[in-house]
């Protein structure tokens, strides 16, 4: 992201994701990753946005070429695994298993007047437990300390996906 960009263009990202749903290119989506965690905890640095989507196209490509060409037609640029809107990198990731369930159960929100969905904290914790990098463990600790967690929901997710929380 260039220094001149004054802010994260999240409203543009969410608007574009809503357009993908309207255009029938994806079934549904939710904001995941660090920005989803920031919805529930104090802000911290992150350099991209993760949009996790449920595919309409069940082939191996998950409809990603069509998504890319739609967004490129709207002025988005491609840079390696990211799509860039106003120089801010966004990753579109096809959901499956736990992440698909996370999209289906995501919390509806409104961001600068744009309707969207964001992963529930219980799912962010479970996904982070599954990935297990240092930053994921830090995210789990932060969410457990700062967010309202439904322990029953979290336990249920962890049990069904055979995940365990790290000892903090």
């Amino acid at each position, binding site marked *: *992201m*260039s*220094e001149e*960009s*004054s*802010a*994260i263009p*999240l409203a543009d990202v969410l608007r574009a994701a809503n357009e993908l749903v309207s255009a029938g290119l994806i079934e549904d989506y939710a904001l995941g990753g660090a*920005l989803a965690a*920031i*919805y*529930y*905890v*104090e*802000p*911290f*640095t*992150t*350099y991209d946005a993760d949009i996790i989507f449920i595919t309409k196209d069940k082939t191996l490509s998950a409809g990603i070429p069509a998504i890319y060409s739609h967004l490129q037609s709207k002025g988005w640029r491609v840079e390696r695994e990211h799509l860039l809107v106003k120089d801010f990198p966004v990753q579109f990731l096809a959901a499956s298993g736990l992440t698909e369930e996370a999209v289906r159960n995501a919390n509806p*929100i409104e*961001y*600068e007047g744009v309707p969207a969905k964001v992963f529930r904290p219980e799912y962010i914790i479970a996904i982070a437990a599954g990935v297990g990098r240092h930053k994921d463990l830090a995210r789990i600790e932060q969410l457990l*300390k*700062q*967010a309202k967690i439904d322990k029953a929901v979290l336990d249920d997710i962890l049990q069904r996906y055979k995940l365990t929380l790290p000892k903090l």
Partner: protein
Amino acid sequence: MRREFARESFEEKIRKVGELIQLSARVKAERVREATEDSADVAYLKRARAKPQHFRPLDDYLREADLPPKNSNK
């Protein structure tokens, strides 16, 4: 305090993350600039040391450079 930050609006949090990104970009750019300057200095020193060293009295240098002598208060 952290819980208070956690309760801020999402829009406010995203604005702060944007500021953090800008700050980080500025620090990175400054580091790159400093590293470039450092490598230019190192290259100059290398070139300078490759030449045979020649010393002369300070007064001679000052005279050639048309500068006042070292004990002058002018």
